[in-house]
């Protein structure tokens, strides 16, 4: 039961080969773009690596880069194969190459689709990674003298100013950590001692935020300290004040930033996947159509092309047990039945036939390769 049988006349085969050649070069460019998009995503993720706890999300850009490179190779060979397809002498060279080629191509195309699905599905993993990463960064904000944490303060400040966000979920996260180092606290002061005592862990907690949370769009100078104390500031109500600080949390901001970046990239890669799939399907049709022509004296006959010779289940079983014949008359193990009578071989070899691929595509006659029918002993003589 052949899967997707289609008839191909000679003209249709020529057109298919030409169209496929163009399509494969377009897909090569598209694969290069996929690789670039993977690199861009990886760079963006690495820039904020300090506020991410786990590197699970990096599987998306890594897959995109691998798939991009593999597609470059796949499409390069596709263009070479379809160039040789209409040439009956050069096409049989590819015979042994085609099966592993199609297997590898299908694998990488499916991997491309997986990358697209992952870019949408890994949002939850990204969010939890950011949650833990931001919590740690905020905790180590004050440790500018500890090796390994010296740059946390700078990173958090730049992050909050660039993305216009404050804290993990919101600015109140700063109330729960001690973000002022003990080095800058006057332990002889009564106020400091009271605050430290009022806390179980002995931490200096205040209702204040770093300056990087300040919103420049606020009409009044920034209020950073004593945020919950209305009487500490003139004409200030902390419950209705919206413009003083950034209200969004950095986790939410970063998740939406990366999600929008990954959906844009995912849409692009999906279109590359469709292109790649169409290249492979067309190549399979061309291969099967040309295989039926091999050995025949008239190359301009109408042939049939198909995707799979047998049904899907039979093909899979065949891969597991090669040589098992289920349908005798189109078994893979029987010798090719198409042969050329010896008298026609000698006549045909004196007449060089121009390569139809290039004669249809170009008008120059200087570089048209001549084709002669094979006179090797591979065909059984009648």
């Amino acid at each position, binding site marked *: 039961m052949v899967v997707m049988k289609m008839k191909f006349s000679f003209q249709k085969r020529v057109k298919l080969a030409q169209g496929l050649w163009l399509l494969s070069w377009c897909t090569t460019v598209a694969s290069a773009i996929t690789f670039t998009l993977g690199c861009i995503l990886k760079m963006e993720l690495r820039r904020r690596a300090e506020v991410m706890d786990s590197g699970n999300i990096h599987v998306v850009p890594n897959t995109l880069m691998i798939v991009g490179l593999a597609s470059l190779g796949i499409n390069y060979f596709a263009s070479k194969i379809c160039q040789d397809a209409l040439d009956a002498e050069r096409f049989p060279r590819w015979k042994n190459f085609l099966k592993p080629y199609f297997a590898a191509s299908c694998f990488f195309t499916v991997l491309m689709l997986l990358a697209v699905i992952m870019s949408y599905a890994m949002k939850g993993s990204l969010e939890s990674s950011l949650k833990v990463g931001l919590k740690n960064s905020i905790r180590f904000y004050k440790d*500018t*003298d500890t090796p390994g944490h010296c740059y946390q*303060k*700078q990173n958090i*400040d*730049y992050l909050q*100013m660039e993305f216009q966000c404050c804290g993990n979920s919101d600015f109140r996260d700063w109330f729960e950590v001690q*973000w*002022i*180092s003990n*080095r*800058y*606290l*006057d332990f002889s*002061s009564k106020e400091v001692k009271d605050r430290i005592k009022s806390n179980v862990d002995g931490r200096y907690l205040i209702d204040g935020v*770093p*300056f*990087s949370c*300040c919103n*420049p*769009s606020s*009409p*009044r*100078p*920034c209020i*950073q300290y004593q945020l919950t104390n209305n009487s500490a*500031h*003139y*004409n200030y109500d902390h419950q209705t004040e919206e413009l003083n600080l950034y209200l969004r949390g950095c986790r939410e901001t970063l998740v939406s930033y990366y999600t929008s970046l990954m959906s844009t990239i995912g849409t692009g890669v999906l279109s590359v996947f469709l292109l790649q799939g169409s290249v492979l399907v067309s190549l399979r049709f061309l291969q099967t159509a040309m295989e039926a022509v091999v050995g025949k004296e008239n190359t301009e006959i109408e042939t049939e092309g198909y995707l799979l010779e047998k049904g899907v289940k039979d093909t899979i079983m065949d891969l597991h047990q090669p040589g098992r014949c289920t349908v005798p008359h189109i078994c893979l193990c029987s010798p090719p039945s198409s042969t050329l009578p010896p008298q026609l071989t000698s006549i045909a070899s004196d007449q060089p036939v121009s390569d139809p691929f290039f004669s249809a595509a170009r008008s120059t006659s200087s570089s048209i390769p001549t084709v002669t029918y094979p006179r090797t002993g591979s065909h059984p003589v009648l």
Partner: protein
Amino acid sequence: MAVGKVTFTKAEREKLAEVLWLLNWISVVAGMILFGLGLFLKIEIQKWQEVMSDQEILYAPHILITMGLAACGINFLGGKICLDCADTNKFLHWKLVMMPYIICTFFFTSCVLAGALMCYSIRSQLEESLFLGLRNAMRYYKDTDTPGRCYLKRTLDLLQIQFHCCGNTGYRDWFQVQWISDRYLDMTSSAVVDRLRSNVQGKYLVDSVPFSCCSTLSPRPCIQQQISNSSAHFSFDQQSQQLNLWKRGCRQTLLDHYTSIMQSVGLIVLLIWLFELLVLTGVRYLQTAMENVLRLGDPDSESDGWILENSLAETAHSNFNIIKNLGKCYQVDDDLNINIPAATAQQEVPSQQNQIPAAS
């Protein structure tokens, strides 16, 4: 004595025309680059236009944009002309247009040079403009409720955050302006009233700075208030003070930023000017060579091409005379075709002689 005389064979003329056609098309691309540069410069200046007091700095990008568009048009026409110039018959179509075209292109090329030089000379004007603009911006920082000035606070904050600078010359400039609005000052508080009274103009001046002056490189949380009083803060030593706020003034930072942009733009415009000059010279040679071919009559012969027919002094002198004579009215004495008054006296005598015989 012609200036820059070169002899051209027919083949050389045709080659020159082809090369000029290609160069004209490259010039069209150069014109688009010029347009793009002007647009880029305009956008960069407009980003921080609010801290510049005068808008004369916008002349440079406007000139570049106009010159870019003009270059595209002129060189497109030039390409068409040069393509036709290889053939003497087609040259006749363009013969009358060539001279005005060359003069036009010469003026255009001078304008490109003027644009390039303007890019380099802008520095002093820019410094003055930034000084006044930043001073005003800091003065109106608190006026977020006054129409026309509502966004100065935001602009100045973003400027200080992005360029890592504070104040006009340094952070102490903030000590001399009232940057906290009266709306947010508790006038009943004695501390506030004391500060206002201690000042001649009744301004609330403090030794503190806005949050946007805070340096992200500081290891300790930012100290914005009571900056000059180091004992007010625990362990506020010299090193902490150095790292606490941004040290540079915004005027110097912006000046450096714009000077570097304009120097790169100016360099590219100079290169484009040199290229345009080359194309202009080539077109002039082609024009004179083709005209001389027509004068000689034989389209296949050799002809001379030059930049100026006579020496520079003679050309200037003759052009000056032409311009002088343009203004003069038409004078009878100069024209030999008209009868002078002596001839009219002789005409009167025959008419009298005619009358006398009739009477007798």
